[in-house]
């Protein structure tokens, strides 16, 4: 039995080891991402973008002489793991702020801990409940760097309804995916407020890979347009199968339809007549530098989450300056003061009341015959 006791001891010692407490003159940023698990593509992209930003800052001598260190931990896309990982970042890695994941569920789960520990989490979890509590007050430590699902869905809805003139909407979404669900409710509310209607609402779940039965129902519902606020892999299946059953509706979607989506579909006839809103414009000059650096380092094109990762670092470091120091509460204070910071995805200002970005527009794109064309930044009347 002796070696069993030994095992337990090793385990405890091991848990405490490998903590790399911050050395003086170093700012540790935690990076809480899904490196494995179903959303690993997103998490890995954010991480790579963030690494580029940190490399760049350090190459330029760091932040006022302090080196920046990025410590990445994996959540496996799992809430329980995320809680442990967040605690690890704060307690053992001595992270002063954390880059959050692009997954709302994890944001919701760590919000109470982050608030209690006063460690800012800057993420792209678009569920507004991550940043604003039910009583309307901001979640003390949670900040969002892209439009909320409400803003986001309203931008798409407004564009489809007001600019493109669609009235009757069909919806197909992944009911088991929080992102898709949170993109649906505000969209429906907006459309219905504007006198439009949702004529067909079809769902699928994570393990379904054949949507033709649903698309067939949509086909006979008499809709003008199909709204598909889902992950990229699902969109690929959707447009391929829509073509198979001869469903010729225009489609609107979120940024998951951004490149490489059309390439993934590989069929210009299927990837056609699709409108979507992206965080940034490919034409905007600030992207070029990051894109080139990314290509040089990783030998492939970045997906848009990589830019978000880059921006999270930029904004957090700006918050260190604005807050007057690199402690948890100082960074939280600093984040509330973020105004007009030029990021790759746009000019970012955070509202101290909601901890959400203010006036962040999105860029509308259209895919025609597999080709992307940019329509330009769009802000709905109601957001102005």
């Amino acid at each position, binding site marked *: 039995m002796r070696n069993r006791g030994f095992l337990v001891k090793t385990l405890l010692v091991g848990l405490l080891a490998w903590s790399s407490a911050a050395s003086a003159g170093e700012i540790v940023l935690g990076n809480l991402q899904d490196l494995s698990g179903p959303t690993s593509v997103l998490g890995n992209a954010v991480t790579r973008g963030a690494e580029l930003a940190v490399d760049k800052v350090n190459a330029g001598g760091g932040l006022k002489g302090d080196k920046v260190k990025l410590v990445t931990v994996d959540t496996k896309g799992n*809430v329980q793991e995320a809680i442990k990982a967040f605690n690890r970042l704060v307690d053992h890695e001595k992270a002063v702020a954390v880059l959050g994941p692009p997954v709302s569920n994890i944001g919701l789960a760590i919000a109470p*801990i982050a608030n209690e520990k006063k460690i800012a989490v800057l993420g792209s979890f678009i569920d507004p409940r991550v940043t604003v509590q039910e009583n309307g007050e901001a979640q003390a430590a949670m900040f969002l760097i892209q439009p909320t699902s409400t803003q986001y869905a309203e931008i798409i809805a407004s564009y489809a309804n007001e600019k493109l003139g669609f009235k009757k909407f069909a919806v197909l979404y992944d009911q*088991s995916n929080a992102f898709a669900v949170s993109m649906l409710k505000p969209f429906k509310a907006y459309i219905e407020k504007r006198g439009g209607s949702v004529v067909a609402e079809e769902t699928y779940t994570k393990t379904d890979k054949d949507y033709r039965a649903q698309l067939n129902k949509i086909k006979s519902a008499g809709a003008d347009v199909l709204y598909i606020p889902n992950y990229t892999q699902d969109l690929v299946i959707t447009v391929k199968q829509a073509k198979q059953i001869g469903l010729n509706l225009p489609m609107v979607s979120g940024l998951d339809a951004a490149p490489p989506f059309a390439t993934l579909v590989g069929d210009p006839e299927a990837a056609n007549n699709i409108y979507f809103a992206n965080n940034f414009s490919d034409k905007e000059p600030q992207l070029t530098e990051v894109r080139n650096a990314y290509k040089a380092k990783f030998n492939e094109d970045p997906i848009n989450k990589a830019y978000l990762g880059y921006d999270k670092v930029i904004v957090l470091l700006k918050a260190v300056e604005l807050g007057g120091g690199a402690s948890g509460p100082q960074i939280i204070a600093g984040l509330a003061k973020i105004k007009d910071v030029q990021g790759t995805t746009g000019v970012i200002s955070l509202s101290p009341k909601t901890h959400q970005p203010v006036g962040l527009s999105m860029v509308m794109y259209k895919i025609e015959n597999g080709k992307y064309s940019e329509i330009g930044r769009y802000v709905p009347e109601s957001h102005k």
Partner: protein
Amino acid sequence: MDYIYSILTLTGITMIGVMGTYMVTGLTGQFSFGQAAFMAVGGYVSAMLALRFNLPFPLAAIAGSAAAMLAGLLVGVPTVRLRRDYISLVTFGFGEAIISVLNNSAQLTGGAEGLVNIPKRVDLPLVLGSVIGCLLLVACYKNSKYGRQCLALRSDELAARSMGIDVNRLKLVTFLFASAITGYAGVLYAFYAQYLEPGYFNWTVSAEWLIIVFVGGINSLTGAMVSALILSSLPELLRFASAWRIIIYCVIVLIIINYRPNGIFGDWEISRLWKKSAKGEKA
């Protein structure tokens, strides 16, 4: 310290969940491939009662475990009649069905976006107390006529029937008990994490629990518990390996299954230590 606390708390909750798998699969030999669903039922029911009806935590906890037991009855009654080979499929299907119900009843459960604002009522001492309490219940169960009969039926169902054991009833009782315990783990989880989402409770969690039970040694409750302790902290221990940690985890599990076919503990139970010393004194 919060880091260690959070690991210990979540590990404790996993240990309680694993007790359910241990009873159904380890003790009784019925392949439970949807045990995590009972955790979901316990967690969701208690959390919803607390949120919508302001039920105090102890009552919510009881209601949550009772609901899990009721769900156990629902699956258990038909399942005990089925051939052994089908039980894994049915429990699996039940797990997926529960998730689909949770996703579909967004009005009540919050759907895929999850249930938020669950009050924090669970801390490390409560979890540790619960682990010890549940462990005592389960250990006593194993040590009673129920436990003996379960082991008998696992080893040879036909012979067990010939010895007068009402096998179906025994399976059902064990199944219900296991559901209630796992449901309680769900309650603890809900009021610790303060957030629930359906996707968390899918079959991969049930599979992980099975792995834990087998690595510990199918015949040993002690083994299951120690293995829960080790395997749920192992990924944390392996953080230094970043993305490789899951691979290292899998390799360790494979080595144990291959080279310690009876698990780490075989059929050794910690209670033997004091039984032996008691005997020694007599002699």
